[in-house]
């Protein structure tokens, strides 16, 4: 019974982390998209690259679409970044270019690994990954994804739940659960320091 209680605390902790972070550090929903005017810095970098090569190759790789494409890819990769969800973008929060926040306690990554294992083996879960991919593809059009990316909370939390559920079937899992609950409490508490 205690094991179940520990597990429930653990799952609750995972579920409340991201919403708590939104309450603790309120989000400013920016409606702008990546199609905002080109900045001076972007123009400078882009033109410098163009000036370096006189061959036709450059036009194929560096053309009018490059700046917008780079912005899109940057957003896409930020949302594909595991460290964005479990380590508040550390170790490269300095170049994130987007607001970053605490989303899940870092130890929850264990559940994601288990979930990947489960979902790779069973085709019915492919929908969850497709939902995540579709959301990321759409969100990448936004200039600032912080806040909007909360729609990813649902499928990702579901995957973590799947992983956590799988853990229940192992013997002595309560030891691990206890350790994870303690760690999680510290990680969530850190948010309010």
């Amino acid at each position, binding site marked *: 019974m205690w094991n179940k209680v520990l597990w429930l605390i653990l799952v609750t902790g995972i579920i409340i982390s991201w919403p708590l972070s939104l309450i603790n550090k309120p989000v400013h929903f920016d409606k702008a998209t990546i199609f905002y005017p080109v900045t001076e810095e972007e123009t400078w970098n882009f033109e410098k690259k163009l000036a370096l090569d006189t061959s036709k190759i450059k036009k194929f790789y560096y053309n009018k679409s490059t700046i917008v494409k780079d912005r899109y890819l940057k957003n896409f990769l930020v949302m594909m970044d595991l460290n964005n969800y479990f380590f508040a973008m550390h170790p490269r929060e300095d170049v994130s270019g987007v607001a970053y926040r605490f989303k899940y306690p870092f130890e929850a990554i264990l559940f994601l690994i288990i979930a990947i294992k489960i979902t790779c083996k069973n085709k019915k879960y492919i929908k969850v990954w497709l939902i995540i991919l579709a959301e990321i593809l759409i969100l990448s059009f936004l200039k600032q994804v912080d806040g909007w990316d909360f729609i990813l909370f649902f499928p990702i939390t579901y995957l973590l739940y799947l992983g956590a559920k799988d853990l229940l079937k192992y013997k002595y899992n309560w030891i691990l659960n206890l350790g994870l609950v303690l760690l999680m409490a*510290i990680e969530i508490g850190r948010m309010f320091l």
Partner: protein
Amino acid sequence: MNKKQWMGLILILILGIFLRFWNLGETPKGFFCDEASLGYDAYSILFTGKDQFGKTLPILFRSFVDFKPPIYTFFLIPIYKILGMSVWSTRFLSAMAGIVTIWFGFWIVKNLSKNIRLALITALLLAISPWQIMVSRTSYETNLALAFLMIMIWSFYKFKENNKWLILTAIMAGLSFLTYHSERVITPLVLLILFIKNWKEIFNKKNTKVLIVSFLLGLVLILPTVKLMTTPGFMSRLNSLSIFSDGVKKPWGFNENLTGWKNIVFNNRLILQTREFGSLYVSYFSPRYLFGLGDPGPRSSYPDLAPFLFWQLPFLVGGWCWLFKKTDKKENDLKFLVILMILVSLIPASITRDPFSSIRALPLVWPLIILISIGIENFWKQFKFTPIILFGLIVWSLGRLYLPIFKFNDYFRGYAWEEGVEKITEKIKNQTLPIVVDNSRGEIYSQILFFTKADPKKYQEENFEVDEKNYYVDMNRNKIKQIDNISVRPIVWNEDIYKDQILVGDALSINQEQIDEHCLTVLFEIKDSEGKIIFRGIKTHSQDKRKFDIENKIGKLKNKCVVTEP
């Protein structure tokens, strides 16, 4: 293998050779002090049997603030004997190691999977890998260490055919261990786990003799280094970089304002270090780093080019899925090796603070490329038109590689490769006056030694730093170097301008104001690709300077000193 497959492999090797050797002496532009230092050590040993500090055949090479593993330097000696000392010949070894990695990468995958097409795709992706090309085009020991590691793995699996291959395994393990810091962790772990997994086949009576010989050979190779493990020289690198060492930097998340129970709970070192280790470890799997950010270091990445090409992302996802799925038993060996390499390769990189170190985590490139190749192979099985797509993607990739590697890197990162020092040595080589080269920022003396091909014997005699006994223990440095008539030291303005000599320094050390004020004439200016001055060479005029000082003292104030001397 049939003729077509051999042809494919040869074409891949030619492509790999082209991408690694083309313009190798000129690109990257410049020659970093670490490269110059290990080059000159090899040159010094070739002619005197001693390194630049006068130590006979060192086990670890004393460098600027740490000690370098010895193998790259020792392997350079025969190359210098044949090709002479140059930027090209120094980088040649690393570029060659890149080709060896492709070759053995192919054979390992082929032998373990029995799938030649998969092995060819792996070799092809290794040949065009931006990460692998980057380390191959510079004198990085990590690439040579990886090549030895690959030969070790290949020969290990060959022992099933002939147990004598274990001898080669031991030699390669020893060489890999001695070639780069990361492999001191990776190689023993990989070997140990491979031995444990295959212990039934290895530890039997018929292998006893070979096992003893292999063990002794390996031991003989690494023992001298192991003996130095507790010296400051050996530990210097670890102490300065490890997330577990105190003093360098507090762990990520450490809050200095906390006291009492909060300090105990939230600043718990074990939790913070585990968290930091986890974040660094996970970053090596994150698409954002693999396909976007890469290594932040200007010498360990290319501008606008990630370690992997973006089109490889979906195939990598496919490869990951293969890793987690239950597959055919005959794929188990390859799967095991990929998992082992992925898990072990990242340990040394993750205990150091730098985010995504492409140098320390280099052995990761190979298992990740295998995963991408498996993704492509599985796609190929389902879609017959895959070869056309793959061909198109490879052609696209070659164009994508061209600009960052051969253009942007030289233009935007020349400063990081310390471009311009070779030109300095050309400008000052026939000067008879004493020369002072400012070393306030950097270790320019190593490049001057390299490019002037200074007489090693004379240099050793004139530049004492440490006696042989304390070579690995005494970390004190002699910052002033004398290379013939060149003194490498910080410029002392209130003394140096009263001696007739040539001063050389970067744009920060010597500016226009100083030239006007101190009666200096510009001998040469070296500019970067953007036309900015990176180095200046100036001549002092001591008599004019003294005259100028006297005139100023007696009240004849002048803004600019007039030079009258020739």
